[in-house]
């Protein structure tokens, strides 16, 4: 599958272009996900998988962002991105600009920590929440 690296400043414009028929008619956002590479300077890799019905081919876009940076949201281009970006925010802590409703989706709203980061300690998860809500020590 061909893969493109996109700078986050141009992300929305590139996506608009790709969605149009001259750009390849990538009308389906199959998936939007992220991966954490903590040893890199820009630790997160936000990956978009696009599909074009007309040309029947797939494309992967990649945006590299640092921990404190905000990524523009593509919900204005594909409505699918709504929940997908909420999940990336929940699991990785990547903040999206221009997202209509950015809040946690899988974890409880008041959870502290972002589970899919590589430095997330699975034996000591949000001890306070676990103690108040479940009444046990975290990591049992």
């Amino acid at each position, binding site marked *: 599958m061909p893969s493109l690296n996109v700078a986050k400043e141009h992300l929305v414009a590139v996506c608009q272009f790709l969605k149009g028929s001259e750009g390849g008619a990538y*009308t389906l956002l*199959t998936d939007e*996900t992220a*991966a954490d590479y903590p040893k890199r300077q820009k630790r997160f890799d936000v990956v978009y998988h696009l599909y074009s019905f007309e040309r029947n081919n797939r494309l992967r876009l990649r945006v590299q962002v640092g921990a404190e940076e905000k990524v523009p949201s593509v919900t204005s281009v594909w*409505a699918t991105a709504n*929940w997908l970006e909420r999940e990336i925010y929940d699991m990785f802590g990547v903040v999206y600009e221009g997202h209509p409703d950015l809040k946690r989706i899988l974890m409880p709203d008041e959870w502290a920590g972002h*589970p899919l980061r590589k430095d997330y300690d699975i034996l000591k998860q949000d001890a306070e929440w676990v103690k108040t809500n479940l009444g046990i020590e975290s990591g049992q």
Partner: protein
Amino acid sequence: MPETTFLDANELVINMGPQHPATHGVLRVKLKLDGERVLGTECIIGYLHRGVEKIAENRTYAQFTPYVDRMDYCAAVTNGMGYVEAVEKLLGVEIPPRAQYTRMILAELQRIASHLLWLGTHALDIGAMTPVFYTFREREEILKIFEEYCGARLTTHAFRIGGLQYDLYDGFEREVVKFCDYFLPKIDEYEQLLTKNRIWIDRTRKIGVLSGEDAIALGVTGPVLRGSGVKWDIRKAQPYEAYDKVEFEVPTGEHGDTYDRYLVRMAEMRQSVRIIRQCVERLGPGPIFGKVGKVIKPPVGEVYHSIEAPKGELGYYVVSDGTVNPYRVRVRPPSFINLQALDKMSKGHLVADIVAIIGTIDIVLGEVDR
């Protein structure tokens, strides 16, 4: 959901709580109602979140395969197929034809089983209490075949990276063909119960309408997309295994309402029977395992592979860093993305239709939350 004020006495926010007999799992839906009309819905999920993607980073590729079954627990075989194929793509391994046809037979049987469960529960939610007994009786036959093949009915762990663990047992082809012959008239029976039933048509026609463009914009795939008129099936568009060598049709609907999605899934069951018969004919003797070493260590790289699961496009994005554990496994869950369409599909309907719409999207919370 739009803002409400305390003095808006016409608008009521009601909770369709996580424990509910018709939400197909632990799904919480906040309904904003004007009397009985739905103005908006908001889904709150995460009650069944088990952190499968995080677990994957601490297991080897082969150790992770059983976890994958437990996501969409009503269609475990296809889950396993997607993952195993993704890793095989990363490894660059070809699996022999006997294994390919066996995988296809089991996957199509699983598709029939998943649609039977869908039909029974969807009809039950709407109020037709009879079909569920018949569909579960047929599902039993399929689960018996799975049990004889791999030992488990529901969470099968049927496939291994590189091929199959177990060769077909004596009489497998005979039982599968017997099932196909037994099952085809049963679909006619279900159609006799529901398709021209006045009450069924009233409860499902024009309910939950989703146009083709909206479906594509929301990323909806699977029977929901096909019900909205978009003729797209990954088995035809980007075939995997040996789907390009068998003939079958891709049923589509016209109006994008619940009734059309029902017709699409019924037709899909018939097509699955057709695929199974063709695969059984082409099953020849041969090895069932490709060339995979004892230790699975794919080269550094990433792959995205998707299959047509009964619920939609099930994709796996696997990133490998050259060690025995995957660096990142992302599951593209069809139910999660299809569930986003609930808000759009339910505006303007009555509360009773919400149950029909949740049923027609065919979600499994294990997959929504992972």
